[in-house]
């Protein structure tokens, strides 16, 4: 399929005038990639979840409903759903919650899982992501759950293997299953009994995300998902961890003052400082704690009704105090618990949604 010819406005006809090229449109991109909006929304397989931007409110509702159904189902009946199907977990970074809950989710549905991690596999010998993916497919894997330190790695894996891929965290980019389990936790408290969502479900709800936004894939997935369901998202943190341009996303505001951010929030989401991604950035931790650590006093003074979320791992005494983590407003362990149900729904979809017919021209040689 040849690329459509876009008309870029012509330069002004007057010879003296500077060419009037303002507001020109993007020259079309190659087949298969949308020119505007969310470039990373494209997937090969309908069961893949690489980015929350590909999830419509309807799809999110399906996932939430399915999560509740599967959670409530008789375990033996549930284990027949994907009995003996094969799922690979491919983890290039360490993980406790995400890996375990994906594994328990897949096993809860009866699937066989295999874990490949970068430290105990041919990845150490220099095998590429493409070859590792093709190898897993040849071994019978029907879907791959990928965690990877490079942003965008799930797109590469999906393109090369054509298998459904679930993004379990790619670099600083996204962590869609975390945003979905966060959403489930929020709904449980703010909209009890709700498992379907629409563009206005979270209207009136303010979510304050505080900490290392720059390096956080959890922040990005939440920032991209929640405003589309009506929520207002406030980001809080120092400029090195929260660049101004983060406010360029729709529905996103920046508030540098932590108490002011807390005072507006029904949901307080705290993030860890990702030491492994700071890339030479020097940060005064004492200064950081003085400005952004969540304490019982701050919570009582500014957000006594809010619930506290944290994607983990938490660093007690840094972004929050131990008392807060264990306190009555904390829903951190409920988030972890919700992870299994959400991931059951994602794994089930990945293996049961029919594959799309391949787009002829978009198939790479």
């Amino acid at each position: 399929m040849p690329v459509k010819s876009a008309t870029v406005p012509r330069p002004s006809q007057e010879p003296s005038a500077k060419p009037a090229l303002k507001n020109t449109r993007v020259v079309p991109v190659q087949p298969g990639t949308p020119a505007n909006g969310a470039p990373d929304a494209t997937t090969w397989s309908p069961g893949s979840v690489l980015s929350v931007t590909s999830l419509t409110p309807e799809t999110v509702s399906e996932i939430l409903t399915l999560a509740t159904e599967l959670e409530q189902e008789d375990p033996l009946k549930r284990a027949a759903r994907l009995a003996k199907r094969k799922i690979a977990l491919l983890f290039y970074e360490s993980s406790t919650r995400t890996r375990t809950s994906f594994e328990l989710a897949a096993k809860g549905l009866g699937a066989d899982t295999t874990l490949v991690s970068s430290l105990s596999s041919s990845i150490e010998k220099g095998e590429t992501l493409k070859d590792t993916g093709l190898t897993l497919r040849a071994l019978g894997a029907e879907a791959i759950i990928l965690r990877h330190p490079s942003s965008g790695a799930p797109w590469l894996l999906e393109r090369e293997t054509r298998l459904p891929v679930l993004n379990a965290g790619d670099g600083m980019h996204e962590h869609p299953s975390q945003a979905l389990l966060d959403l489930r936790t929020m709904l449980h408290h703010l909209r009890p009994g709700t498992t379907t969502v629409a563009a206005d479900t979270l209207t009136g709800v303010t979510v304050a995300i505080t900490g290392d936004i720059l390096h956080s894939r959890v922040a990005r997935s939440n920032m991209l998902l929640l405003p589309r369901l009506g929520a207002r998202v406030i980001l809080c943190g120092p400029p090195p961890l929260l660049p101004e341009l983060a406010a360029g996303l729709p529905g996103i505001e920046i508030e540098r003052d932590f108490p002011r951010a807390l005072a507006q929030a029904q949901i307080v989401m705290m993030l860890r400082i990702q030491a492994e991604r700071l890339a030479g950035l020097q940060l005064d931790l004492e200064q950081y704690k003085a400005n952004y650590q969540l304490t019982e006093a701050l919570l009582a003074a500014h957000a006594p009704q809010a619930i506290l979320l944290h994607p983990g791992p938490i660093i007690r005494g840094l972004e929050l105090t131990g008392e807060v983590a264990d306190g009555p407003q904390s829903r951190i362990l409920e988030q972890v618990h919700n992870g299994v149900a959400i991931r059951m729904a994602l794994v089930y979809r990945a293996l049961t949604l029919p594959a799309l017919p391949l787009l002829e021209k978009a198939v790479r040689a």
Partner: protein
Amino acid sequence: MSNLLIRNGHLIDPAVGIDAPKDILLKDGRVSEISAPGKLKPAPDTEIIDAKGLTVAPGLIDIHVHLREPGQGYKETIASGTAAAAAGGFTSVAAMPNTVPTNDSPEITRWMQAAERGASVRVFPIGAATRALKGEILNDYAALKAAGAVAVTDDGHPILKDSIMREVLINATRCGLSVIQHAEDTRMTQGASMNAGALAFRLGLRGMPPEAEYSLVERDIRLLAELSKDKGGSGKAGARDKNGAVPHLHVAHTSTAQAVAAVRQARRNGLRVTCEVAPHHFLLTEEHVGAYNTNAKMNPPLRSAADRDAMIEGILDGVVDAIATDHAPHASHEKEVEFERAPNGITGLESALGLSLRWLHREWKLPLSRVLSLLSAQPASLLNLKGRGTLTVGSYADVVVFDPKAEWIFNAKDSKSKSRNTPFDGWTMQGKVHYTISEGRVVYRAVALKKAK
């Protein structure tokens, strides 16, 4: 050497302002005669090309290509890269020195031009400005020039230190060589893989800020201004070659609005600063990174729409002196990796003319002769390639014969390059090359025509 008569074509020679139906006779590798249609009586052994309905122009000149030899023949060889050049209408290419080993020496410079390399078109090596492109120790420019180098650069790397850049400019000028700068302040681009901005933030990729480019261009212009001053009362010697020419700075692959603005201002101030723009920078924006498409990863990166528009404006208003492809072949296995790990660069020799005509000429109404000038006369003049970029009698018989109206689809798999890393696969091109003639030899002939014979 046999003679070649191209007749019934429309000759455009921007260097001398010819834009008219002419027949042209090539003899012994040179342009022998130009005449009104039907006037030339060829000798019996003359090969005749019927160029009815076609444009005849000076062979195109790309002053920025990576031919990957010596050392990386799996990406490209001088033979394959110049075959791609010929297919794209190019008859001269200037080869960057970031080879393995680096082109630091007259030996490598000569090796690249040797007949055994099997080049289809003329290769002009560009020497490394500093040893191993490290920006520390200057190479021997006189020796490089004597071996055939036409300029010096550390392309792929900047010359960061002020003192070194000053020395490079002085020494190059004394030898009559231009200095080509890869303007990137690498202190601002560590670990970055696309343009800095909201989209990079959104995609979780570290960004290269526009300042990294334009701050270095501005720094270079300041140095150039100092060195271009006359030897005045200050007692400080300006840099001059033996004919009194001032230093020439050429900015490679310009990608930011501010860099073009800086060049425009410097030219108004009378400095010898030129710049080139690659087709991807006047056509694509950072949006084309899309779903982490490694064929949209290059250095400098694709920038914002405003920057892209500034490239077009610069081309239209004349501040841009050349279209250069930055042809940078990479093997498929090198590009089929995580975006952040993929090497920078895309191929460009076979799509440059087609994209320039489709967009600069048809869409943005740049006259055909201006487009051709940016692809031949101007690059020849800025690297002082004598007898190239024009078809006046006595010039090298470097000719491209093409159909300026024909549309065609560019398929990367049909490329003559060893590599396929292009974001323009499947794009509509305008202007089909029928013949490319290098120093009197037909080095490319469109396939369909061959069959018709």
